């Protein structure tokens, strides 16, 4: 695990000036306004290939809107959103195209297919044919079965594979959704509040799971309020406030920042 490198402090300016072609994800001056409310205000940041980044910030800071902009759910009023070294303009694509490019998203509220079995949930998410007509005659290959077994090992839901998605506990649903992301094999995972409503033990396991996913070469952006969890991740942290980056660096640096303490952490 390469956590020591990612913990190296770097000033905000250096990151903003980083070359577009080096970044996996590149946001520059992204602004979104809803009925006069500015949800994102000239937000700029980049995510490197293989990087894991945690994003914190008070409610209404624009964390979910940022994810909406990256995944095509919301179109920014202004600004650039580029993927894969500036080769793809994400603002021109819809959710499905962006997903196909290799950006997977876990929603804040766990969203699994409740009336499908856990196994079928993973089958549906597994990278592969997405067109309607060929899927009528699709047969599962041994390779696909092995991959699903692997993911079950990773998310530790093997013995629940026959249960309905809707019958899982809250924490299990969160894991299943992360497993579904893994099955898509995205280059970048956007994970919105993965440990909300989890016990401490589950939270620690989730941090472990995300580190493992990151170590396997996936870039990860995690939005989370739980500071213990963010500390467990041990990655670069970015604090959003009123739609732009307030502070960035290691968790210690960010949490020592006067402004962050004022607007988010509290004194």
């Amino acid at each position, binding site marked *: 695990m390469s956590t020591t490198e990612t913990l190296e402090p770097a000033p905000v300016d250096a990151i903003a000036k980083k070359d577009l072609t080096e970044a996996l994800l590149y946001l520059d001056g992204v602004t979104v306004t809803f009925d006069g409310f500015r949800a994102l205000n000239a937000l700029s940041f980049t995510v490197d290939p293989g990087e894991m980044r945690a994003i914190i910030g008070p409610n209404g800071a624009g964390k979910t809107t940022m994810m909406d902009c990256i995944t095509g759910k919301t179109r920014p009023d202004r600004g650039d959103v580029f993927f894969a070294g500036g080769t793809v303009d994400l603002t021109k694509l819809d959710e499905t195209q962006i997903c196909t490019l290799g950006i997977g998203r876990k929603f804040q509220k766990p*969203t699994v297919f409740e*009336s499908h079995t856990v196994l079928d949930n993973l089958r549906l998410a597994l990278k592969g044919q997405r*067109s309607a007509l060929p899927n009528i005659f699709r047969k599962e290959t041994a390779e696909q079965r092995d991959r699903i077994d692997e993911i079950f090992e990773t998310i530790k839901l093997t013995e629940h594979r026959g249960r309905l998605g809707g019958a899982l506990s809250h924490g299990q649903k969160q894991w299943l959704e992360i497993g579904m992301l893994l099955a898509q094999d995205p280059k970048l995972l956007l994970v919105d509040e993965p440990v909300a409503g989890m016990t401490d033990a589950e939270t620690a396991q989730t941090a472990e799971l995300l580190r493992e996913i990151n170590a396997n070469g996936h870039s990860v952006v995690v939005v989370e309020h739980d500071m213990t969890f963010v500390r467990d991740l041990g990655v670069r942290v970015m604090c959003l406030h009123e739609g732009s980056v307030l502070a960035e660096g290691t968790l210690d640096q960010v949490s020592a920042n006067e402004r962050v303490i004022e607007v988010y952490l509290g004194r």
Partner: protein
Amino acid sequence: MSTLDTRPPALLGTSGQIFLAITLGVAVLVPALNLLLPPDSPFYIPTYVVSLLGKYLTYALLALSVDLIWGYVGILSLGHGAFFALGGYAMGMYLMRQIGTRGVYGDPVLPDFMVFLNWKELPWFWWGFDMFPYAALMVLFAPGVLALVFGWFAFRSRVTGVYLSIITQAMTFALLLAFFRNDMGFGGNNGLTDFKDILGFNIQSDGTRATLFALSALALAGGYVLCRFLVRSHFGKVLVAIRDAETRVRFTGYRAENYKLVAFVVSAMLAGIAGALYVPQVGIINPSEFSPANSIEIIVWVAVGGRGTLVGAALGAVLVNYAKTYFTSGLLAPYWLFMLGGLFVAVTLFLPKGIVGTFYEWREKRRPPPDEAAPPLAEPRPAE
């Protein structure tokens, strides 16, 4: 790790086998009891009953087509009667052309209503309907193309839920008004009737009636197997996923609108086949088949039988229509619509999963290992 649950569910579960056995059984038995027994035998089935039962079977196929999209994709179409009627009109046009010089006006080409309207030649859209293969193609094509165009616009624009239901209703109402007009060239108010023969066989004869009945039963069986094949495929799993969490499906990389469109077109074609089998058995097709109330009635059949079970939809159609035949012919006739409405309310309140859905639930409770029961309906939850 169990390998048991990686096995896909059987194409035909227990209920499916029973359903097919009954359908194929009546396909043989009813015509046999009609044709082979003397009329004074206690087991003899009169020809009018054969046609009545045949009508129920076409309704069952229609209900199946609605269940495919409502039960498995969550598309509540309140205009499915339109696809049924279009299939019926395509068949009706073929039957009209078979009348030939036997019509009241004796025109070898023009149907009576065109002569009556002083039309001199056959409109272009009637060309080819003297050939059965062309008409049969149109039975699939007319509803299929309408569903394709309608669905393409509706699903791409992400019209869902009650709004989609309303525009399907508007679609069938618009067609109702259009087909009422004499200028449309489909016989206006009176529709198409006075059919003489089909493929050279007298449409009134016992043999033809029995054959049409058997074909309706076979179509129902075939439609069931097709729907069952679709819903248990990977494609079908995506459909159910769309029903429960459409946004999640999009974020998983599937084009939900394309999946809906394929299901909608297949469903419309099944409804068209049902309409085409219905018309020769009842002997008439007119614009009232497009009336919105008809389409709503189909929803009641499916709800009564059990949404998302396929077998239930077919059962519901037969039961409700049997009740309709029974009650509309006696003292209770004026109150049928109240009873139908009451039935829908009662089913919604007391039997929300319908007859078959409730039975599956009961069976599920008695027997722990889950089998081929259709996935229970979850409340659609929008992804945040």
